[in-house]
């Protein structure tokens, strides 16, 4: 086994290969690998963030739904209360109106009866006068007997 200048040639060849790999090969492929690792890391982080956002959105949605439900219940309550109030209002208005109408009717009845009584009294008075005149056979002077006639009319009216 002889050692010759082959050592130098082989050494230089090896060195050249190593230099070419270092200069033109390695940086590109390791760069690609590291870039991909970065991309994957970013992707995973984004996925995590998305998941977290989704969870948060779910919680928020639950809150909103709960709030809406509460509000709906509240609105229904209010509506119920309000309708009760309206019914009560209507009832009281109606009863007041009824009372008023009743009063009016009573008043008008009283008025009518008073008026009727007045009419009757006059008629009765006239009848009494004409009756008396017939009985007496002469004209009664209304003026002369006004006092008597009034008393009579009042008596009739009372009766």
């Amino acid at each position: 086994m002889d050692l010759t200048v082959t050592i130098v040639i082989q050494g230089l060849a090896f060195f050249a290969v190593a230099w070419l790999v270092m200069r033109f090969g390695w940086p590109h492929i390791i760069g690609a690998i590291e870039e991909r690792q970065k991309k994957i890391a970013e992707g995973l982080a984004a996925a995590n963030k998305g998941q977290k956002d989704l969870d948060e959105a779910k919680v928020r949605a639950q809150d909103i739904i709960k709030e809406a439900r509460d509000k709906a219940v509240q609105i229904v309550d209010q509506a119920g209360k309000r309708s009760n109030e309206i019914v009560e209002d209507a009832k009281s208005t109606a009863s007041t109106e009824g009372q008023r109408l009743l009063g009016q009717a009573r008043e008008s009845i009283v008025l009518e009866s008073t008026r009727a009584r007045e009419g009757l009294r006059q008629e009765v008075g006239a009848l009494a006068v004409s009756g008396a005149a017939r009985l007496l056979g002469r004209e009664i002077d209304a003026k002369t007997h006004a006092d008597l006639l009034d008393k009579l009319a009042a008596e009739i009216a009372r009766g």
Partner: protein
Amino acid sequence: MGMAAAEAESGGMTEYIKHHLTHLTVNEGQGFWAVHIDSVVFKLSIAALFLVVFITVSRRATSGVPGKFQAFVEMVVEFVDGLVKETFHGKSRLIAPLAITIFCMVFLENFLDMIPVDLLPLLGQKLGVAHLRIVPTADLNTTIGMALCVFLLIQYVGIKHKGIVTFFGEFVSAPFHAHGPVGKILTAAPNLLLRLIEEAVRPLSLSLRLFGNMYAGELIFILIAALTLGSSLAHVSTYLFGTAQFIAGFVWTAFHILVITLQAFIFMMLTIVYLSMAAEHH
């Protein structure tokens, strides 16, 4: 496996083995200036193959979804990069590319050992090439060449990371640390001696380990191939030896796959470790 065309030109197993272990040499008989042209050519071919594939894939590499081949290359790259990051904690643009070059080059060169041992020499002979050894790492010149590169890089990384003063200071101040001028003078000589031994042993062990494994592996393949050397189909023994040859060849090839991978890994790993040590302060 063949029964050795080499047999025709000479006689016997010794001649056959010797023929298989002789390099195709330019400037033969000129001592140091002889060139093992077969080692050089096969190394350069492997280098060209590796460079074309690796640089093409790297240049086209996308940080999006990788293709299958890019994924394969990335797997190797990440394996090597992981090893380097585990071992070397500083920042270096040099170590990881060097490591993957060593791993791939040594593995591919070793892998030539998987080609049937007689095949290419036989083809070569038809083309008028007298000798052909196709495994560059089974040539001590190749492994020493690589180990010397690593040795020089160790010195370079040491000087770059520590500065020239600290670097050469450590030649005489470590591994034995002394306080006071007397102690420093007393420990300087042993420190220097140990350091020189350490520095010399590293490239030596790197190159001899790889060479030894590959040379031995190749020799075993040659011996297995020689089982049916000069046999004829007319003899019963040929069939016995042929069966033995097939089984032995299969077993040794399977085992050798582990060896070539392991040797590539060891060469790379030791280089990473040496360079890391060079960058650290004692």
